[in-house]
C-alpha cells in the first residue's frame, strides 16, 4: 500500500495508461480522436472530472454507506461532468460543438467510476488526487497520440489549437480512411500492439 507518492502519479502515464494498458474508456478514445485538438479537449475534461470526483469520493469515503456507494459516486461524477459541460459551452463553444454528446457521456466512462471504486474509496485525499491527475494526464496523452496518428495520415495536418498546421506538402493525398470509424479501430489496434511490444520484458 505504501507506495511512494510519485508512483501514484507516474503509474497513470505508462503502467496503467487507461486506453492502452487497462483498455478502458474506449468509447471516447475511438470517437473523438479525429484531431489532436479534440483529443486534448476530451482529455482535459476527463482529467478535471477524474481529479474532482477522486478527491470528493476520497474525502467522503468514511461517510458514504457502502450499500449506496455507487449511487453516491455517480451523483458526484455527474455533477462534475455537468460543470465541465457548462464551462465548455460558456468558454469553448466550438470545441463543445465538436465533442458534443461525448462530454455528457464522461459520466458513464468506466475510467472515472473505476478509479473512484478501486482507488479513491480506499485511499487518502492527496493520494487520490495524484492518482486522478496521473490517470487523467495519461488518458490525455493517449488520446493525443492516437489522434496525431489518425489526423496526420487522414488529413496531412495537425491541429493543436483551432488552425491546422500542414505537415505534409500539398501533394500529399489524404488517407481519409484513418479519420473514419474503422480507421480508429485499426489505429488503436496497432497502438496496443506497439505498446505491448515496447513493454515486453
Amino acid at each position, binding site marked *: 500500500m505504501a507506495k511512494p507518492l510519485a508512483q501514484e502519479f507516474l503509474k497513470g502515464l505508462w503502467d496503467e495508461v487507461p486506453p492502452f494498458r487497462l483498455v478502458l474508456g474506449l468509447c471516447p478514445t475511438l470517437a473523438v480522436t479525429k484531431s489532436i485538438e479534440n483529443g486534448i479537449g476530451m482529455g482535459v475534461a476527463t482529467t478535471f472530472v477524474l481529479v474532482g470526483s477522486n478527491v470528493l469520493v476520497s474525502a467522503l469515503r468514511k461517510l458514504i*454507506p457502502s450499500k449506496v456507494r455507487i449511487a453516491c459516486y455517480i451523483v458526484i461524477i455527474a*455533477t462534475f461532468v*455537468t460543470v465541465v459541460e*457548462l464551462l465548455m459551452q460558456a468558454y469553448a*463553444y*466550438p470545441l463543445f460543438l465538436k465533442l458534443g454528446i461525448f462530454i455528457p457521456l464522461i459520466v458513464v466512462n468506466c475510467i472515472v467510476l473505476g478509479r473512484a471504486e478501486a482507488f479513491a474509496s480506499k485511499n487518502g485525499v492527496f493520494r487520490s488526487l495524484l492518482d486522478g491527475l496521473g490517470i487523467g494526464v495519461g488518458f490525455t496523452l493517449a488520446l493525443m497520440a492516437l489522434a496525431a496518428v489518425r489526423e496526420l495520415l487522414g488529413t496531412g495536418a495537425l491541429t493543436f489549437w483551432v488552425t491546422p498546421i500542414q505537415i505534409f506538402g500539398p501533394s500529399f493525398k489524404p488517407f481519409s480512411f484513418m479519420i473514419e470509424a474503422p480507421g480508429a479501430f485499426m489505429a488503436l489496434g496497432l497502438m496496443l500492439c506497439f505498446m505491448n511490444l515496447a513493454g515486453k520484458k
Partner: protein
Amino acid sequence: MREMIKMVIVLTILSCFSGGVLAYLRNSTQERIDNQVLEFVKGPAVRTIFEGASNNPIADRFTLKDADVERTFFVAVLDGEPRGVAFETFGKGYGGDVGLMVAVDLKEDKLMGVGVTTHGETPGMGAKAKTDPSFVAQFKGQSMDTPIKVVADGGSINAISGATITSRAVSAAATEASEVYKKLKDQITSEANKIKQ
C-alpha cells in the same frame, strides 16, 4: 433501520448539494452560453448574408412574439440606415429540420439572402445547401409575394441534384419567413429603426 436512515440522509444531502452547485453555475453561465450559441450557430450565416454591414448584427438584435413562438431578429445597418433584418425559420428536410437564416430587405420587401444554420442532411448531397454558396445565392432578390418553390414544383429555384427534399425544405423555410415578415412587418420596422447607426 439506522443504516437505512443513514443511506437516505447521505444521498439526500449529496444530491441537494450537487443540485445547488449546478443551479448556481447554470445561472451564472446562462447569458454567456446564449451569446456563444448565437455567435457560433447563427453568427456565421448572419455575417455571410450581411457582409458589409457597418454594425454588429449579432449584438443589435431584438425579439418579437409571433403567436406562441418567440423569434430573434438581427438588424444590419447598411449605408447608414437599418436596412435588413434576419431571422430563423425551419423546413422539414431529409434528416430532420433544416434551420434557415433569412434576411429581408426592409426597403424593397425582398429577400436579401439566406443561409443554412443547422441541418442533419446527408454529407455531399443535402449538406451542400450549407456548403455550396451557389444554391442559397438563388434566393437573393426573390419576391415575397408568391411562395418560393423549386423548379420541379413550378418555381424558380434550381434544386441541388440528388437533394430535392432538402431544396424543398429550404424553399419552404424561406416562404415561411416571408409569411412571418408580412405578418409582423410594422413591429419589425419600428423595432429596427430604434437601432442606432
